[in-house]
């Protein structure tokens, strides 16, 4: 098998005395959905910040498409095809939905006309077709999540980092957005997603990494990871695995 699209090795990040990310090595294989789970405060969003270039690592490297990108600024990584969404969605408040998506589209289209056309296509793809002219700040939470997705998609990424894109959505909204994500994968986009909605991440991902206290404590197929004693204890506390009779 060829080298993964994204290969993170031994990444470490300290904030003062706190070791937020500790020697983490993960990979995202091309064309697949990789899940990143773990209890709150495990360092998942920090890891995304490191991969997308917002935070510089103290140690380790990041390779993308075989090239080292560890010191590259965020906007350069976006140009290479790494897009990310944010945990706390922040649309460009004063603009319409379409104008929001256009900002992303402009990465690949210089002319405004082309960018507007591309934005329309992407907007329809995520299901916002009827709301393109509305001000972005009038969208519901579910709408804003789709907008966040659309903006990132408009940059035509090869690797899409989704940070809790399902957070704050009710079961119906989740049921509606999951197929959208799956379709992106079918299109060939590699996805890595941080998620707390277990059912969704288990059913979408082909490979999962579990992060706790800054370290990878387990990885593998969803079923494997779900039964892992260490994972259960990380979420439910020490001794929980025994209590629930899990296999070691």
């Amino acid at each position: 098998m060829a080298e993964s699209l994204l290969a993170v090795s031994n990444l470490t990040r300290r904030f003062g005395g706190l070791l937020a990310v500790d020697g983490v090595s993960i990979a995202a294989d091309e064309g697949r959905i990789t899940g990143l789970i773990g209890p709150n405060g495990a360092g998942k969003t920090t890891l995304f910040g490191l991969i997308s270039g917002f935070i510089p690592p103290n140690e380790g490297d990041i390779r993308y498409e075989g090239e080292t990108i560890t010191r590259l600024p965020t906007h350069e990584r976006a140009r290479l095809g790494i897009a990310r969404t944010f945990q706390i969605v922040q649309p460009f408040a004063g603009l319409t939905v379409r104008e929001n998506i256009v900002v992303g589209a402009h990465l690949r289209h210089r002319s405004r006309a082309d960018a507007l056309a591309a934005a329309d296509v992407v907007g329809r793809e995520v299901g916002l077709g009827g709301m393109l002219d509305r001000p972005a700040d009038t969208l519901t939470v579910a709408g804003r999540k789709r907008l966040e997705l659309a903006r990132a998609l408009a940059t035509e990424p090869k690797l899409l980092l989704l940070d809790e894109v399902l957070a704050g959505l009710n079961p119906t909204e989740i049921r509606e957005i999951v197929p959208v994500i799956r379709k992106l994968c079918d299109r060939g986009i590699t996805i890595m997603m941080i998620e707390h909605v277990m059912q969704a991440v288990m059913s979408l991902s082909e490979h999962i990494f579990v992060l706790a206290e800054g370290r990878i404590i387990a990885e593998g197929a969803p079923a494997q990871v779900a039964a892992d004693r260490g994972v259960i204890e990380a979420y439910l506390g020490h001794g929980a695995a025994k209590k629930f009779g899990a296999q070691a």
Partner: protein
Amino acid sequence: MKGIAPILLVVAVLAAVPLVVHSNTALNFLVITLLTALAGQGWNILGGYGGQYSFGHAAFFGTGAYVTAILQVRYGVNAWPGFAIGIAAGALVGAIIGALTFRAGLRGSYFALVTLAFAEVLRILASVAPVTGAGVGTLIKLDLHASALQFESRAVFYWVILVLLAVSLVIARTIENTRFGAWLIAVRENEDAARALGVDAFKVKLGAMTISAAITAAAGCFYAQYFLFVDSGIAYGTRMSIEALLTPIIGGAGTVFGPLVGALVVKALGEVATYVAGDAPGLNLIVYGCVLVLVIAFAPRGLIGLVTGAGRRLARGKREVAHG
């Protein structure tokens, strides 16, 4: 996409004004108003569209004014190239300040503070440097010929400043219609989200700062030609920094016509205040300060924002009635 037709219309109407208004006082008032609008349009590019609030735009105004004046007075350069060089000098100062501050990642209040400091440093230097005439200032010799960019008729000065303003309006509209503008506005709304979408925030802010400085410098160059006298207080004093900021905020930051509307309102209010309470120092600025606070409190998107906001609410209301 918005076109330049509204700009052409407004400029045409303004151009016709001297054909009916002949009073020198009135024309003088209009020239000063358009001058302030031009300085404000410069601020608007960086502050209105870009969201970076500079409290020291006088740095560019003063550089334009001094360079134009000094080149003529000390080096015998003709006023026309002097004007162009003044604009370029202002743009250069903008690029330098921008490169330093944006490279250091300064935003918000810190950015405002540092721009204030730069303007103050320039003011102090200008008040002691021999080349600027130090405390005495620089006086341009009266030479009422077009070749020296001076005119006997105030109407001609009016048309000159109008042309400069028109160019700045077109620049603003062009920015709105291009990728640069979309990126600039994105940086204003949320710089981190913009970076994640591939926007080189540093380059975009620097570009906006340079254009902004050039436009405000042009206002400074014109000031020198119109008043024929520049000193450190006029050039780099806080008054110009305040007026450059005030006019777009009151008129509507991030819009093409905001600074013009703001300048008209601000200057008109100033005249009213003088008429009512006499010509006392500080009166104008008291009015300006109050208007600033009131606008932020009740119309944070400026007067134009007030109008378009009302229009939008009306449209939404009609839509709801139609569907209801």
